[in-house]
């Protein structure tokens, strides 16, 4: 256990509408998500004194959001980043509350990820070469997409550990199955069978379009405060047992070494911080920008030994009644894509038992893990309990 264990909580979560074309700016989406999270917590906007966000130069600022809520915040912070940023910012929020600077912090991610600035392309090759560390060694060869960079890790890892295309398919099929129970999921009403999956051509071997995350317009928000203040909130607090987030790889050009990822470093730290083990986890949100990234993290976080992760997913363990129900709203493969925050919202709702007696609720879940992955070099994770 660490100094922060059970002393901070997520007390509110909220999201905007999710669409292919929001027709509004990220500020409008962020306001919808923030108001939903504030209402969920039973707070008023003026109770929030810190606002934080992550973005890729595709969003509004925390200050814009705060002022449009009629709040003059004590503290705002916007960082450049994708996956794992939620965990990084929660750690910052806790530090600021711990030091007495702030009381309650709202963290959001807002993006027109489909109709606006898309991760999938449209970049100037020379800009990419100049801005990506070691860009001259990849961009002239047509390798400009995370799907290609992570794909190099995937092909090697699959070769070494016996993971097959069908194992990737089990990740997709399990998450799409969750999405069929979630009317707000992007791929609700579009189920995926293993036969469909295996008949889908590769977009970038070893990945088909189903192995890639989707792109959506949406905003998500969460509210973090101390355990004492959480008692006054409307909803059941979800306590943070432990967390870890770091950028860590032996070379700044992470593709120079395909054998290790930052999750390998974060995993022991997050368990130590929370004082629990992998076998204590009841429900998971595992960052899923690509199906294979889930498999690599299942290995890193100790849910199955190296070499047995494929069997673990083939046995149906990611499904709602499996050993480790994972990304139960559909994840980024089939629910929505905000670089991970939608997966945080879902695990908070699961741990509150918000879905009650419906088929969406993971039965008797008490402890959950949420992981982030910005790439093989950046990982964040937190363990939560109800």
């Amino acid at each position, binding site marked *: 256990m660490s100094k922060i264990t059970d002393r901070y909580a997520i007390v509110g979560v909220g999201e905007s509408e999710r669409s292919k074309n929001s027709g509004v700016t990220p500020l409008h989406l962020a306001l919808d998500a923030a108001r939903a999270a504030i209402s969920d917590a039973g707070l008023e906007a003026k109770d929030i004194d810190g606002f934080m966000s992550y973005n890729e130069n595709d969003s509004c600022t925390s200050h814009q959001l705060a002022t449009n809520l009629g709040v003059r915040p004590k503290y705002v912070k916007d960082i450049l980043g994708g996956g794992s940023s939620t965990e990084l910012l929660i750690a910052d929020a806790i530090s600021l509350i711990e030091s007495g600077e702030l009381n309650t912090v709202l963290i959001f991610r807002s993006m027109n990820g489909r109709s606006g600035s898309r991760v999938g392309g449209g970049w100037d090759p020379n800009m990419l070469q100049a801005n990506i560390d070691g860009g*001259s060694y990849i961009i*002239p*060869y*047509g*390798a400009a997409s995370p799907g290609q960079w992570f794909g190099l890790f995937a092909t*090697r890892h699959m070769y070494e550990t016996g993971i097959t295309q069908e194992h990737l398919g089990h990740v997709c099929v399990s998450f799409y199955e969750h999405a069929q129970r979630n009317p707000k999921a992007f791929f609700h009403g579009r189920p995926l069978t293993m036969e469909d999956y295996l008949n889908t051509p590769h*977009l*970038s071997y070893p990945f088909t379009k189903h192995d890639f995350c989707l792109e959506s317009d949406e905003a998500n928000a969460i509210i973090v405060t101390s355990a004492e203040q959480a008692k006054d909130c409307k909803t059941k607090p979800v306590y943070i047992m432990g967390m870890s987030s770091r950028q860590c790889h*032996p070379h700044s050009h992470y593709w120079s070494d*395909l054998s290790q990822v930052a999750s390998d470093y974060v995993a022991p730290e997050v368990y130590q911080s929370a004082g629990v083990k992998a076998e204590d986890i009841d429900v998971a949100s595992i960052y899923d920008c690509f199906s294979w990234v889930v498999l690599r993290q299942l290995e890193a976080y100790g849910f199955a030994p190296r070499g047995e992760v494929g069997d673990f997913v083939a046995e149906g363990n990611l499904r709602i009644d499996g050993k480790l129900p994972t990304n139960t709203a559909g994840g980024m493969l089939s629910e929505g894509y905000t670089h991970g925050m939608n997966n945080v919202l879902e695990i908070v709702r699961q741990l509150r038992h918000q879905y009650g007696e419906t088929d969406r609720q993971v039965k008797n879940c008490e402890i959950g893990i949420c992981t982030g992955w910005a790439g093989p070099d950046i990982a964040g994770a937190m363990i939560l309990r109800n």
Partner: protein
Amino acid sequence: MTYQKPIPLKNIDNAPYWDAADHHEMKLQKCNDCSNYNHPPGPGCSKCGSTNLSWKNFGSDVKGKVYSYIISYRPFLPGFQNDIPLVIAQVELDNAKDVRIIANIIDCEPDKVEIGKSVRMVWEDITDDRALPQWKINE
């Protein structure tokens, strides 16, 4: 017809590598203190932090084994529309095992690629004064 694909941009750290490539040779940055190669190169050794770095010339006979690969069926950058399917491979060098270099495997059917396959470096003359290292399968 001018070259449509991105040309490697030289900078203060990588210029010796790309200058050598223009002459159809391969040079790698090497740390004089810990003897490790540093690739991609930089101002400090990623193994020990030393700035005591030099460049070793491997000449034009560079061989290796496919360590990993992907095959793109869609161009992710302008200029690659006629190169689909595009094989992008990371190759472990026979003479410097800890160095792995990414390039395309050219003139190669996708189903001929596999991990462990033996390849050699070739250089494509892409402009009057620039050349791009590529991999080719050793038959």
